[in-house]
């Protein structure tokens, strides 16, 4: 290794050290735990090795529920939030008056504490002894009976979780998309106008391809973020998510480690590895699809 190379590694050392200790090592460790049956972190012992942990987790109804919840959340919120964010940013970039004000308003949820937002959603949706919640009040105006969104039927709870998630992730997407839209050279629009291009066609044929790298970035990070959802469910349904039937994969991992019946690092590791494989697969599919539809200048 020559001197210059050595110098390079020296500069990289702090980052490598931190990444190694806090990312690479735990990753490998989790992978190993997931194959060790009944690992006990206090005594550092285990009974044997094999795929039993995976078999257990995949047969655990709570885990299957968590998988179902997580997938539903991903499939509903990622496309919807991206689409809504796109609509809002296009609207924002086409208005002149009060633009700054609207931008601020749309960005506010991003800087609002998750639990504070959870509280607001409680007021909106929770049925208490005194009130059925704001949404139910509105529903009653249309003659629909009160629905218990927090402790009631599954679809109602999922609906609230999805609305909540979309509301939380949208501001960031709006922010990023607004700046992407602003960076499209005005000359392209002028050229399109002179050629008599309809507004819809300008959007589909010019604007979208121009901002496609940004949209793609938001979709990828959106998928990953939604798969890792946990705190949003806790904010709405409390810590006992299994009982509420609203657990997510990350929630399941957490419960296995520290939850009520906790202390099962082997099961937690197996579940974490399964999540890792899912996210990896989805991201790879995304990358493959993007090759055709994303234009990089």
């Amino acid at each position: 290794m020559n001197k210059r190379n050595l110098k390079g590694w020296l500069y990289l050392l702090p980052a490598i050290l931190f990444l190694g200790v806090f990312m690479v090592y735990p990753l490998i460790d989790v992978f190993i735990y997931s194959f060790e049956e009944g690992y006990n972190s206090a005594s550092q012992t285990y009974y044997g090795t094999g795929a039993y942990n995976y078999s257990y987790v995949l047969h655990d109804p709570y885990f299957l529920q968590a998988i179902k919840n997580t997938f539903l959340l991903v499939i509903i919120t990622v496309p919807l939030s991206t689409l809504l964010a796109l609509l809002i940013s296009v609207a924002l970039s086409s208005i002149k008056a009060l633009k700054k004000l609207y931008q601020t308003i749309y960005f506010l949820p991003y800087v609002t504490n998750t639990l504070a937002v959870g509280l607001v959603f409680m007021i909106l949706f929770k049925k208490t002894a005194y009130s059925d919640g704001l949404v139910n009040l509105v529903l009653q105006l249309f003659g629909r009976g009160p629905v218990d969104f927090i402790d009631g039927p599954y679809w109602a709870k999922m609906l609230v979780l999805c609305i909540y998630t979309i509301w939380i992730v949208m501001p960031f997407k709006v922010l990023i998309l607004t700046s992407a839209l602003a960076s499209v050279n005005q000359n392209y629009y002028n050229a399109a106008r002179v050629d008599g291009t309809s507004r819809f066609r300008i959007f589909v044929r010019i604007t979208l391809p121009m901002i496609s790298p940004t949209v793609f970035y938001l979709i990828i990070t959106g998928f990953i973020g939604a798969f890792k959802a946990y705190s949003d469910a806790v904010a709405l349904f409390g810590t006992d998510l299994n009982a509420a039937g609203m657990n997510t994969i990350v929630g399941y991992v957490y419960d296995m480690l520290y939850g009520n019946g906790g202390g099962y690092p082997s099961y937690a590791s197996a579940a974490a590895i399964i999540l890792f494989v899912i996210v990896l697969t989805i991201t790879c599919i995304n990358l493959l699809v993007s090759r055709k539809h994303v234009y990089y200048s």
Partner: protein
Amino acid sequence: MKIVLEHLTKQFPARGRKSRESVTAVDNFNFEIPDGQLIGLLGPSGCGKSTTLNMICGLEKPTDGRILFGEEDVTNLPPENRGVGMVFQNYALYPHLTVKQNILFPLQNLKGKDKLSKDEMDRRVQNAAQLVQITELMDRRPSELSGGQQQRVAIARALVKMPRVLLLDEPLSNLDARLRLQTREEIRKIQRATKITTVFVTHDQEEAMSISDMIVVMKSGVVQQIGKPQDVYDSPVNLFVARFLGTPPINVFEGEIRGQKLYIGENAILDAPGISDQQVFAGIRPEGFVLDKNGPLCCQLGGVEVMGRDISVVSSHAASQAPAIRSIISSESSIDLSSKTIRFAVKPNKIFLFGRETEERIYL
């Protein structure tokens, strides 16, 4: 299609706290562009030439005045209904589309009774591509093309919808010097072939002079002079136009009219019959100097620049506005470089007089 500009005026509203006055970008522009001509709008940056072009195109709305294409008033028509083709300074080719898709784009916008069949579209795209000689580049992306090729694609895209008027905004400014020469010939040829009334904007006087049927010289939003390039060069109406046209630029001296003669320094250079005594600027074109041992204009010799066919003599004179006077002399003449001074006679048709205050031309 002739284009008539009547009292065309564009004011931009004041912006911000600093400037409360609105800016007049174009002031009372009157001009009738004859059918099928190539017109160069010429002026320094900020003179309003691009704004004028954008108003003809429809991207900017005039504050006052009218624009007519033929007999039709298009002042309030949006750009897509005017039948104009525009080539933008940076070409504005859609980077994610191939050359063919770029040229096809305007045709795909046509709706209703104007809608073309696929074969007709292909035929038109082929024709436009042939005209600008890019048929072998059809499947490339703009980023894979040279500047000159991109320029041609942009022209093809503007021509494919068969516009009534072709507009070019600084069409050559993004090209290197050699390509510029070649492309301007190309533009001239295409314009001749299509006979579309064409207006182009440039700050390069050489570019405008070389290919335009007529040039319009503008300054601070006001038209200074309109005419055939040679006429404007041979008879500028004021000092600005005289200075703006010609390379090397005109040499300007501070002079004086005394007793119906023009004096530069001590010597009478020229007869100026019928002109009252006053302070003037005298502009002499570089080719207006003639080597003459007994000539009236005596300058300090600085050096000689060889330019092949001609030589450029660099000298100085106390009355000259610029530190260096450049005169173009045939390379066959011999110059004694050891001599400190050099004497010139002046061709009377290459010297122009301007009022010292007004800078307007004083005709002899």
